[in-house]
């Protein structure tokens, strides 16, 4: 049965690739557009720091390193969770009805029939560029320990954001439209997450740590590696919690998803 699942993943991926190569020029342009769109925030912070030098003690390389974690995790995330991000549309056009009618896991189908490899290249590519550009200039000693830490932090960060997507997708079962909610809880929080959270109002910091825990995606892991002064404002154990937060959050949200499916209303007609 295990082999069979992997086989199906392969068939799904092949199907997606084939679809894209029907429009070659568009596929390339798309990756480029995603790359540029995501780079907007970076360009802005780069110009800003040309004028101001540091942001609460973080120089441009350290900020780019902080950003790189955000984009790397998103690059991985977009492979696995695009289907959840676009769940509202899938419900509206009847695609989810069709998933229900097929003898496979619903999440499995949502994930693997929607993996957005081109966006992943755009985001992940940006993450890698930023990482390469910054990692050598922020004084991290890369050894087995820090590499392992880094990898688990990325996995944890992917799970945290995956849980947010899954939560929002689940809300879609109850509400017709959740785009604004997604805008608020995901995209806006993500905009905050590009910067050291210590610069923000206490209420926003609280949100970033305890409500939509983006701080665990990049700020605390970056702090483990960079040890900036503003970490003094938070319990130091937070630097180690990312994988646990990711796992717990994802499991709890998954339970909510399973529970909510019975209320699914389908669309139209």
């Amino acid at each position: 049965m295990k082999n069979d699942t992997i086989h199906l993943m392969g068939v799904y991926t092949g199907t997606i690739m084939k679809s894209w190569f029907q429009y070659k020029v568009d596929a390339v342009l798309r990756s480029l557009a995603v790359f540029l769109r995501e780079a907007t925030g970076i360009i802005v912070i780069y110009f800003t720091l040309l004028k101001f030098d540091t942001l609460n003690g973080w120089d441009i390389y350290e900020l780019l390193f902080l950003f790189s974690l955000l984009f790397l995790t998103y690059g991985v995330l977009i492979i696995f969770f695009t289907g959840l991000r676009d769940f509202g549309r899938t419900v509206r056009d009847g695609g989810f009805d069709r998933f229900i009618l097929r003898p496979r896991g619903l999440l499995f189908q949502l994930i693997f029939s929607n993996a957005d490899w081109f966006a992943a290249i755009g985001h992940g590519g940006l993450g890698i560029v930023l990482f390469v550009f910054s990692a050598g200039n922020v004084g991290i000693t890369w050894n087995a320990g820090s590499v392992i830490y880094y990898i688990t932090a990325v996995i944890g960060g992917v799970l945290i954001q995956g849980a947010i997507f899954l939560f929002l997708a689940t809300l879609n079962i109850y509400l017709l439209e959740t785009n604004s909610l997604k805008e608020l809880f995901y995209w806006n929080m993500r905009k905050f997450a590009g910067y050291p959270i210590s610069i923000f109002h206490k209420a926003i910091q609280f949100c970033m740590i305890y409500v939509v825990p983006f701080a665990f995606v990049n700020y605390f892991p970056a702090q483990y590696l960079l040890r900036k002064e503003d970490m003094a404002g938070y319990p130091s154990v937070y630097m180690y919690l990312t994988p646990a937060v990711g796992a717990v959050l994802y499991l709890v949200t998954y339970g909510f998803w399973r529970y909510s499916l019975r209320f699914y209303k389908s669309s139209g007609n």
Partner: protein
Amino acid sequence: MSFIEVNEVSKTFRVSKRSAGIPGMLANLVVPKYEKKRAVNNISFSIEQGEMVGFIGPNGAGKSTTIKMLSGILYPDTGSVRVNGYIPYRQRKEYVGSIGVVFGQKSQLQWDLPVIDSFELLKAIYRVPDEVYQKNLKRFMDMLDMSGFINHPVRQLSLGQRMRADIVAALLHSPQIVFFDEPTIGVDVVGKETIRNFICELNAKDKVTMLFTTHDMQDIEKTCKRLIIIDKGSKVYDGLLSGIRDAYGTTRQVDVEFAQDCTVLPIEHVEIKELDFPSGRKKRFLFESREVQIDSLMNSLLADYAIRDLTVSEPEIEGLIRKIYNGEVAQ
């Protein structure tokens, strides 16, 4: 226990209510109003294995909602559904492998890819063994004459071709039950005929159980023996197709062309109309089937008059069903 058991099932949706005009819009922005719409209201029926049942009703009658409950997409609010021993919405993964669903309005094919790629994907999803897949594919392709477009991208297909491909897509895993939701919508006359013949053959040879919604009565007349009609969420008729005539269409009509002008003496319970006035050569005889035996009427006409031509006609099912929808027929 029947193959498909639907027992006192209801389903209610909450729909938001819009008020008109700018004041209404402002009010709606602050306090939204909702109303409950009962899509399916206490419906029960059962279907035996191998049956082919037409499931019809006007738009918004609750057909799709019922199909969605039968196929496991929706949970019923109250009542129970059991198909082939499964409770569809609780035992989804085990159940759906044994059913096929065709939504005429929503294709399940990959829009940008050749038809065959979608089939290959479905083969993997349903874990169809190679030899079964090849056998089914070859057979269905022959029956539906698909070899001409199997390698074309779906977006280039005509509606009729796409529908045929969608039907095959729903059958590749040899389902025991197939739900068709408007499988001929937008298809031309020849295409419809191909689809109907295919469905009939599948039912006859493979004993596949089928439930069939459509707005085209010809679909039903050419495929189904049994008919379930629902309206406003409730079942209004469940029985043989021919039973519709017995129940609602009891009027018979005999048109007679006589060899020469003639006057016919009044017959009890029979209304006589002139069709070729002022000549008396063509007449129509209308009567209720329970009051007048058709053979005795004909015998007496043949005995007394020289007749050139004679047609007996029953009322059109389509007309009768329209009457049922419109509430013109007492139930």
